[in-house]
């Protein structure tokens, strides 16, 4: 683990958060508006590699996950924030350029926006495609999954 714990870094910046150790690893939950501040502070403390960024539809809201790594120590950290449907989270491309593609992808597939993205075009789907990673878009019913024909 890095010399400074992620919780200490965020506390020093005055960012409200909730930290927990889950099956996934170290998870920090915080407000979407503070995510850029949190990632910038973590970047300075060694979490300088964005492994992945993706969003999940929880059924009520969209949960965005930022997976960062302190490269020197092989320590992974997951930051999670909830965003409303059609809501917005700040883009973090100026801290991690690796976020450029996944932010565009999450925006089109979940129907949300990343404010401040320099090129907020669709990445994978064409114009008019619905945000199909939302749970409201069905491609197979639960019954069909349980008893495949």
């Amino acid at each position, binding site marked *: 683990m890095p010399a400074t714990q992620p919780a200490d870094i965020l506390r020093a910046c005055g960012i409200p958060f909730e930290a927990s150790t889950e099956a*996934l690893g170290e998870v920090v939950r915080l407000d979407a508006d503070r995510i850029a501040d949190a990632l910038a502070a973590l970047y300075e403390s060694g979490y300088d590699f*964005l492994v*992945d960024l993706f969003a999940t*539809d929880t059924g009520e809201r969209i949960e965005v996950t930022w997976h960062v790594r302190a*490269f020197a120590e092989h320590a*992974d950290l997951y930051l999670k924030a909830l965003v409303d449907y059609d809501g917005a989270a700040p883009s973090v491309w100026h801290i991690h*350029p*690796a976020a450029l*593609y996944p932010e565009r992808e999450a925006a089109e597939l979940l129907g949300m926006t990343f404010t401040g993205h320099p090129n907020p075009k669709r990445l994978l789907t*064409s114009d008019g495609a619905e945000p199909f990673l939302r749970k409201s878009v069905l491609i197979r019913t639960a019954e069909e999954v349980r008893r495949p024909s």
Partner: protein
Amino acid sequence: MTDEPRVTMPITAEGTTFPGPLPCGLRCIPRGVDELATEHLVLNMGPQHPSTHGVLHILVELDGEEVIAAEASLGYLHRGIEKLAESRRYHQVPTLLDRADYISGLHSETAWALTVEKLAGIEVPRKASWLRALLMELNRYASHLVWLGTFGMDAGAMAPFLYIMRDREMLLDIIEAITGSRMMFNYVRPGGVAADLPTGVDAKIRAWLDVADTYLDENDALLGGNEIFRLRMKGTGVIDRATALAFGMTGGCLRASGVDYDLRRDVPYCAYPELDFEVPLGVRGDNMDRYDVRVGEMRQCIRLIRQLIDGMPEGEPSGKRSRVLKVPAGESYAAVESPRGELGIHLVSDGGFTPYRMRLRSPAYFNLAVVDEALAGGLIADAIVTLGSLDIVLGEIDR
């Protein structure tokens, strides 16, 4: 024109030059052709183009032959694998993942198996771990061969491709004998692997190992031993260490930029902690370094396969597998070092029969994002080579 002509000549009122004595027998003053406007040209490379390695569309802005900016336009192969996985049972997902990275399907299958096993707490027999590692190394070698051949073609060398495909055929025969399929394997399952090594395949692998070094030396001599090829690779498509890290690059591309990071060694999985291998590194992060790192990796592959086949333990290839797998609610992430880099799968389960959300962290997707940085400032001919050196697979990028 602000430049003064070197020879002062009388000019008529109409602007034409007097025929007078000109130096060196020139016919006229070399003023050039005026009023020729130069503008940037936006060129569409792909989606149907032999050197875009799939259906990739790259927009390049050119000033003459120099690339000013580049942007990748993706999605031509998007099938919504992540959404499809949400309506498949846990055992059915590997068939989708085979079609994500279709050159090295065993890596994504193993990443899936490791993720599910991590969340469900399934123990894997030692034999299965070794079989997974063996198959992954065979698959890595086959994948690197495809890269080596197509990379040569991008640089204009057709002949090595034919020899390389002959070598790959031997490997695909071995993989087919073990898994039953040449490319769409569905061999690695949560809990183990589908089948043990069949009789006789051991001799087949050893026969390949006997010639593998020679074949690789020959192929390397054809490409890497070619002075023209080397001169073209050196200093082009430079991606420095900071850029590589900022764009989330992993695998051979990252190691060519001098970052010593390999999941097989640093976050070990399967049989890798018991194996002995080296991680080749580059310095400058140019095309030559990426070539050298991958060819170095192929040599390590041969070494690993030899160790894996010599030390293959006895035992069952799979633990007890239930017909319908239910995974407790929660999240997990596991990653393997695929031929292209860190292939990770993030699984969210709600405790049901199917995954709630499956996210594929595709290495080529992140490696490709660097094209704008890597191509700008270079020549259009080098852009093709640089793109080839990134070793992208569009099935995995578009998912």
